[in-house]
């Protein structure tokens, strides 16, 4: 199957005009968005996220490297036939109605009017804007404009949806609805690239994320992998005092109480040894979960490390308070 989106060493330098200093907005960005996944693009302001999205859609031209949409260069209109796009900070014509915008989007995507009418109604209802469809966009709140923007991006049933700050200005109810729409699209096998500052939402919706900083990719990975804290586990159950000091070659206890133990195991296989040893000490284990941090913590650490020149993700245990055995957290 053709990969919906692939960039290879994509770079973009904005020239500063005569005598001006150019700004390198993207530096050798290589990433792939696989079919059926929700991919998040994260980064601080000025990281190059919007430049990357615009390069992907040929709205700006890359300086070097390449980009492919379904195996075709984005300058090829056929490549964009399968793409729906919601722009950041869009300002659609104020004297146009929501329905008019959706219809225009459909027409520009090559759809016939009866199909546009049918699908437009369904989408306007889906984004909760059917009641307001015949009101001029100039009278919409930002959240309403975003919802209509979602409908216009989806009108031609695209296989790849590119959303630049889709929940910007949308109230919590609207955010939840947009998140649901994205999840529904995933269930239909669609692919989405989401550029967002709303890290909690990205963490909940996205399968994989790329974190950009100063035009470079700091990391790409599954959300669960990025937020997992390596060899740290939280074990709940019922524990005797003797469980507080396992052999050093198996694990180190980070925190201990009679109901929960947080431990760092010596290696990937040691978790089995630890549970066996705990049972041997008379413990009753109810659950075992790998400790994780929020995506926001990971994001802040990565950006801070990039700023200070420290490479990689700092081990999260450094931030975890180590308590003496027997002391409750």
């Amino acid at each position: 199957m053709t990969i919906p989106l692939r960039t290879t060493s994509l770079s973009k330098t904005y020239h500063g005009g005569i005598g001006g200093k150019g700004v390198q907005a993207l530096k050798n960005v290589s990433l792939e968005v696989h079919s059926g996944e929700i991919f998040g693009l994260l980064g601080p302001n000025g990281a190059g996220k919007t430049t990357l999205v615009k390069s992907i859609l040929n709205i700006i031209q890359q300086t070097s490297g390449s980009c492919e949409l379904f195996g075709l260069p984005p300058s090829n209109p056929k490549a964009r036939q399968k793409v729906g796009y919601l722009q950041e900070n869009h300002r659609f014509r104020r004297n146009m109605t929501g329905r008019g915008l959706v219809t225009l989007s459909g027409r520009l995507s090559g759809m016939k009017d009866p199909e546009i009418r049918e699908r437009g109604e369904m989408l306007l209802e889906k984004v909760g804007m059917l009641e307001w469809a015949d009101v001029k966009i100039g009278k919409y709140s930002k959240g309403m404009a975003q919802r209509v923007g979602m409908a216009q991006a989806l009108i031609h049933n695209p296989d790849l949806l590119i959303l630049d700050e889709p929940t910007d200005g949308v109230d919590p109810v609207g955010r939840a609805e947009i998140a649901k729409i994205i999840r529904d699209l995933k269930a239909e096998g669609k692919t989405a690239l989401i550029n967002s500052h709303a890290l909690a939402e990205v963490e909940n919706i996205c399968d994989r994320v790329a974190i950009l900083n100063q035009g470079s990719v700091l990391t790409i990975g599954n959300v669960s992998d990025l937020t997992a804290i390596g060899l740290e586990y939280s074990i709940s159950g019922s524990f005797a005092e003797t469980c507080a000091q396992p052999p050093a070659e198996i694990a180190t206890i980070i925190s201990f109480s009679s109901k929960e133990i947080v431990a760092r195991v010596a290696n990937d296989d040691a978790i089995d040894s630890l549970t066996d040893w705990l049972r041997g000490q008379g413990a009753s284990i109810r659950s075992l979960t790998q400790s994780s941090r929020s995506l926001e913590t990971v994001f802040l650490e990565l950006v801070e490390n990039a700023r200070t020149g420290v490479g990689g993700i700092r081990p999260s245990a450094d931030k975890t308070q180590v308590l003496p055995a027997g002391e409750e957290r």
Partner: protein
Amino acid sequence: MFRGLLLLAFFGTVKSRLMYLYGIVLLVWVGALFVINNATIELNMASNASINGVGAFSGIPSLASALIFLSVFGVSRKIPEMIKPTLAGFYLSKPLSRTGFLSYTILANTLVFSFLILLLLGIYGAFLSQLFPFHISGAEIIKQLFLEVIVFVIYVPLISFLGLITRSGSFAFLITFAVWLVAKILALEEMRGFLSLLDNNLMTQIADVAYYILPRSSDISSMLATAKTVGSDSLNWSALLTSTLSAVGVYSLAVLKFRKMDL
């Protein structure tokens, strides 16, 4: 896709405040016709018309100039509006090449504004024919109407190109107005005389080149009148030819520029 852009251009224009100005201009000209008619100067008009058939529809070029002015103003805003960073992504993410998008946009706006000019001039022409039925040939009016529309059409690529490079409707309009003014001055017989007085070969050559490169709106607009004045049955098409070539050249520049633009 073209249909989408055509309807967008049509409804965008019809719903704009510019339509009030079109209405006011038409009312002023039609009102002037009635005033002239009621002032019982038919005899003078008739004598003028019989001497020179052009005189009877001299109101058309002046109305056309006003309508072209408004239309150029209207078109000047279209391209900069569509390439605004807050809207460009919407259009450029659609499955349409940049050349196609620009060409369709220019064509759609040209058709819409040409239709408006033709419609309003037609309404005026209908009044004119009713009020002065003996002195004006319908065929002559129709030919003149089309020439006025051509004058507008040859300016559209220029204003679109200027809109692309300045990204401002106001700047594009002002520069186009300046171009129109220069072309108008260069077309004056007095200017020819003035340049010959200067005895500066370089200046004369620059003026000659500019005269043929810039849209020759005055010459096109007065093609019929000139033919009648010199008593010739055939029209001099050179103004139309050079202006069309110039418009095609500017359109090509606009396409080349747009294909490489970051929006």
